């Protein structure tokens, strides 16, 4: 339970920022996704199961803040959290290039998956128009924010664990 407190606190703060600050950080109609940043960082620092749980909760909160259907972002962030968490063992405490690359790929994948899912549900827009006006700019924006946020957030979320595998020492 003690290990879950930083994760819960991060998702809570990210939800507050998404509702109160993100709308005013919008550039050309593209709004940052703080919940995505928290989910991927959490997954990279703790693992796939935790990533999937955090992704589902954060995605559901994201869906609740909007006027669209409940569930699409929960589905997308669950999968994003899980797959990002699979790389958890490859992360080094002092490295930043790999996590930022993973964050950039995860941000783009999540945006594309969300757009496709909305399209499937009849709520979306033409794919290439969405890709160039929303998905790609949002992924770039979120990655730029991740450069600022990731080092601090990862430090806050990382569990104190002994080095257990050879791979982590390598």
């Amino acid at each position, binding site marked *: 339970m003690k290990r879950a407190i930083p994760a819960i606190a991060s998702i809570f703060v990210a939800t*507050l920022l*998404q*509702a*109160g*600050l*993100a*709308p*005013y950080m*919008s550039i050309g*109609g*593209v*709004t940052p*996704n703080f919940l995505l940043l928290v989910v991927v960082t959490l997954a990279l620092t703790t*693992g*796939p*199961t935790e990533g*999937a*749980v955090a*992704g*589902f909760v954060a*995605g*559901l909160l*994201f869906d*609740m*803040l*909007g*006027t*669209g*259907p*409940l*569930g*699409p972002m*929960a*589905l997308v962030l*669950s*999968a994003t959290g*899980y797959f990002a*968490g*699979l790389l958890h*063992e490859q992360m080094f405490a002092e490295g930043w290039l790999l996590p930022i690359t993973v964050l950039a790929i995860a941000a783009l994948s999540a945006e594309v998956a*969300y*757009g496709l899912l*909305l399209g499937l*549900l*009849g*709520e*979306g*827009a*033409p794919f290439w*128009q*969405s890709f160039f*006006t*929303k998905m790609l700019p*949002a992924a770039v924006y979120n990655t730029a924010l991740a450069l600022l946020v990731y080092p601090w957030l990862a430090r806050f979320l990382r569990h104190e664990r002994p080095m*257990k*595998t050879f791979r982590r020492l390598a």
Partner: protein
Amino acid sequence: MKIQRTETPGPRPGWLILFVALAIVLITVWYRESDTGPLHRVQSGVQVVVAPIEAGGELLTRPVRGLFAWAGDLGVSRSQLEELRKQNQSLRVRVAELEEARLENERLRALVDLPKARELQSVAAHVIGRPTNSWDGVIVIDRGSTQGIGVGMPVIGPQGLLGQTVAVAAGSAKVRLITDQRSGVAALVQRTRAEGIVRGSIDGRMTLDFVEMDARVKKGDVVITSGIGGIYPKGLPIGEVSEARREANALYQEIRVQPASNPARLEEVLVIVGEPATVVPQGGE
């Protein structure tokens, strides 16, 4: 000696499958239930909790946004100033003409004893929230069901139509903008009375669809609500035609519309109350 297992547990895809299944169930239930169903009520409940946070964000960021707006306005060039002066002059002439027409209209109405045009009752509201994500063209206002606001009511800004309320809580309501890709408004071109549907898009641009090829539409034409469909009252300004094209072999013209109101800078709006309306989840009217 027994060697201790030191590897961390491997991935458990069961959790992912569980959450994906749960999300699919949620999506299905959300679409199948009515607007008063449990999931919609939960979403409205969250709106009640989040509205003060959104209002706080609006208040805290106002000085910074004001600074950016001021800095942006500093960039007005001499040619733009000249253009604005010319525009001001032509508008003065137009106002005088319209005033004359208004007076004439009043005299004619009195003459034939026409009933006064339908008075629109409205409730003023402050904008307390902007879209929380890139996909949702929605603003939040600080008036809700306790002030008589219901779902499906038209919302206007100082320059014209803004959108329609789509979710209402006790002290706040969400307004889907006409620029959102899920919005559609029955409209007509004021000058030529050509009818069509104004639709929003993912990038916030608006188009006037289904206008016949033989209808005369040109850049600068004012587009207003036609009142067809019964959601929006007739005659509310929607915007101006910014581009009109006729493609060979096309069924309809391609018309782009510049919205009359810019929601990014809006601080106050009016909700037109009184008439019951219906929300059309896709495509508006």
